[in-house]
């Protein structure tokens, strides 16, 4: 069915101790195009970020960020057009405002604010986009896995409660 040559890959991410999984949100007009530009120019960057295209960084709902962290992502990238260059005039500023507030909330939740990154990239800035992603992956690698775990192992639970002795 496929004619892909069966060559052994040079290296595998599996061999490395920790490969962060990251979700990235891009806007349709600048940062997604920056990612396209990085691709068209064959710039190489770390494969850890999986992108989601939004029309605008202003669409970024904090729910998405929390969902990503709760779902096992080690970090989240939010990217949009440069300030002043938003294709929807000023909506990236709203993303920026939310980003600032989210970082505060995340910090209170014990998630290092550095796991949430805001990146402005214009459609022409493929190189910046690629470099920043690689840098971000390294930063997150240094932070270690987030391992968001909402089912922590409970302290030993007795199989049955001796009902006779405990009164509600």
């Amino acid at each position, binding site marked *: 069915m496929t004619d892909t040559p069966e060559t052994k890959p040079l290296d595998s991410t599996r061999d490395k101790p920790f490969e962060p999984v990251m979700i990235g949100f891009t806007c349709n007009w600048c940062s997604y195009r920056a990612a396209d530009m990085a691709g068209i120019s064959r710039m190489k960057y770390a494969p850890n970020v999986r992108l989601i295209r939004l029309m605008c960084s202003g669409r970024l709902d904090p729910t998405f960020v929390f969902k990503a962290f*709760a779902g096992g992502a080690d970090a989240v990238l939010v990217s949009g057009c440069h300030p002043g260059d938003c294709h929807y005039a000023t909506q990236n500023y709203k993303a920026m405002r939310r980003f600032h*507030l*989210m970082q505060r909330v995340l910090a209170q939740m014990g998630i290092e604010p550095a796991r949430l990154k805001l990146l402005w990239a214009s459609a022409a800035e493929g190189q910046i986009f690629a470099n920043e992603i690689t840098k971000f992956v390294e930063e997150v690698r240094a932070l270690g896995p987030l391992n968001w775990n909402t089912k922590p192992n409970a302290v030993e639970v007795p199989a049955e409660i001796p009902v006779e002795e405990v009164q509600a």
Partner: protein
Amino acid sequence: MSKPKFAMYWAASCGGCEIAVLNIHEKILDVDAAFDVVFWPVAMDAKYKDVEAMPDDSITLCLWNGGIRNDENEHMAHLLRKKAQILVAFGSCACEGCIPGLANFSSTQDMIDTAFSTITTDNPDNIRPQASYAMPEGIITIPTINPILKTLDQVVDVDYYMPGCPPESHQIAAVIDLVIAALNGKAQLPPKGATIGAGNSTVCDECPRKRNVKAIKEFNRIQLMAADPELCLLEQGIPCNGPATRSGCNARCPSAGAQCIGCYGPAEGVVDYGARLIAAFASVIDSDKPDEIDKILDGLVDPAGQFYRFNLAGSLLRASKAAQTPKIG
């Protein structure tokens, strides 16, 4: 013909919900008339073994109030789920964790330390509760605490949700009327998973305050300012949770001059209550400069507490990193 059976249980919560049920005044007589109360520890004596002895699905309506804090809560949730036909998460604690859920910000150790060794606690010998203790008479045990507080539906399947801290009495009365009517075949129960005893919109829908467009230059604390009694509180920089909080309380707090703190939880279809407020508040901050935004946000003391006061356990993130690493020393 025997009457339908009614049960109510009090798990990790303050007990206000129980009071709220009694606060429906003479309507409580209708409950008594319509139901056989088979299990209601706060109102009548009962043993767990009596519940265990009941046939499955024998309880028609069970109101569960409180979050799941320890193994006893969890055990009872499973037990009552088995015995009840309709299990209602009653009140904010059962629905979304509420105030007890705020402990999910801290580690179990911190929570216990706070309870047993702060200066307000008279505990000179620093005695800590033990899960089990050998007495001459034998070993006694108390329930074991879970690292994080869970909502009822994180443990068992829930039929209906009734929000509020506590639910408003007029809403409780209306729900009871509805259930009785449904039992008599005179009304239809809403689809499973529905929120009952509340509105579909948010508190602003019922709020009498005047409102204009919003542009927040600074956040204020209501106790530190003379707020305009007519104008939308959020427009005055007071972080009012009303815009994101489910309606149904008749905007009780904002009408009385206090900001909504969000006890009725998220509106229909909302995945994460706090995220809605983060997005909404941040969007209307009137600045595009990072430094200035930070300065404005400094006015929002304890943002996570502001946005998740009632909803932490029920939120996407559920508990802080500290709470996820149980260690009791």
